[in-house]
């Protein structure tokens, strides 16, 4: 636990719950003194063994849920990427080599991504009273290209992506 939460905890311990009023104290004292006359209605429950706590039923996975749609979108992207990168070339091998050598002075662009920082920020509560932690991911995309005159250009773009991650409380 962080220091500020410990500080809050200590401060809370100094706030005392309200004392019982004299009337309530008398009433409760009398009830405990004469417990035979105050048998609770749920007396039979004292002999009942409660069922063990059960895990909440997991939500059924549906294709049309947010998770299902995300999975479908991921599959679609993977499939499209595979189609792009794995499409067999219609060129003959010797033609491909000739074309490669003619553009040798232009090197392929280099794309790079560097993660610079990950932070766990504030906590939020969603509409379902579920605590969520905000995570921020900082990274820099850089692209290095060489033009036909041999000049090397480096493009950098800093980015930040923010996620809300549900915190486990059950």
């Amino acid at each position: 636990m962080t220091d500020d939460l410990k500080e809050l905890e200590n401060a809370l311990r100094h706030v005392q719950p309200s004392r019982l009023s004299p009337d309530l104290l008398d009433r409760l004292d009398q009830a405990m003194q004469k417990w035979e006359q105050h048998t609770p209605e749920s007396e039979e429950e004292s002999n009942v063994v409660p069922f063990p706590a059960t895990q909440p039923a997991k939500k059924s996975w549906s294709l049309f849920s947010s998770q299902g749609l995300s999975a479908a979108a991921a599959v679609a992207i993977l499939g499209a990427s595979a189609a792009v990168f794995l499409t067999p070339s219609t060129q003959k091998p010797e033609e491909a080599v000739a074309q490669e050598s003619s553009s040798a002075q232009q090197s392929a662009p280099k794309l790079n991504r560097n993660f610079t920082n990950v932070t766990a920020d504030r906590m939020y509560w969603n509409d379902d009273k579920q605590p969520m932690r905000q995570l921020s991911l900082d990274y820099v995309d850089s692209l290095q290209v060489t033009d036909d005159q041999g000049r090397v250009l480096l493009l950098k773009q800093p980015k930040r992506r923010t996620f809300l991650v549900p915190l486990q409380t059950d």
Partner: protein
Amino acid sequence: MVSPVATDSSSSSTPETLSWREWLEECGPKLLLFARQQTRNSQDAEDVLQESLVKLAKKVNDNTFTGGQNGWLPFIYTSIRRGAIDLGRKNDRRGRREDKAYVASEIESGGVDDPWFGAFDAQDELGQQLESALKDLPPKFAEVISLKVWGELTFAEIGENLGISQNTAASRYRYGLEALKKKLSGARNRGDIEL
């Protein structure tokens, strides 16, 4: 009527004789606080607390209570929680007429007839702010805070009381404190309370 005898079966310490009243004066405030959190109004809280105390008195006098005096508080907390759940179901079946009447009286009185926290001179505002903040918290977080801070239970005891794991109890406590800190920070920044 036999007064409860506080004995520790796990040690050879000298038994102490406590009257119910003495024990109530010491532990009653935190029990009532928990009962208020578990129920809809002060009257229900007092009824549930009384019912739980009667159960304890019966078991102690029948010599059917196991665990000694150290087990009284956890027993009462568990009993309060179960009693509140049962009472809630009964109230749902009975209808909302009584609730409406109570809400009307709360509005008329400003809801300050039964403050949850003692009114100290310098902390009256803090008590009110704290009560309001706890009421705003989801119940499963507020009850863990109540049991840990004022009930002085361990996370293992809290988990057993609420039917959750020790780690879950600790998580709810930490997240609940974070939420509480955020809710109280506004009043703190305004200088309404010192925390």
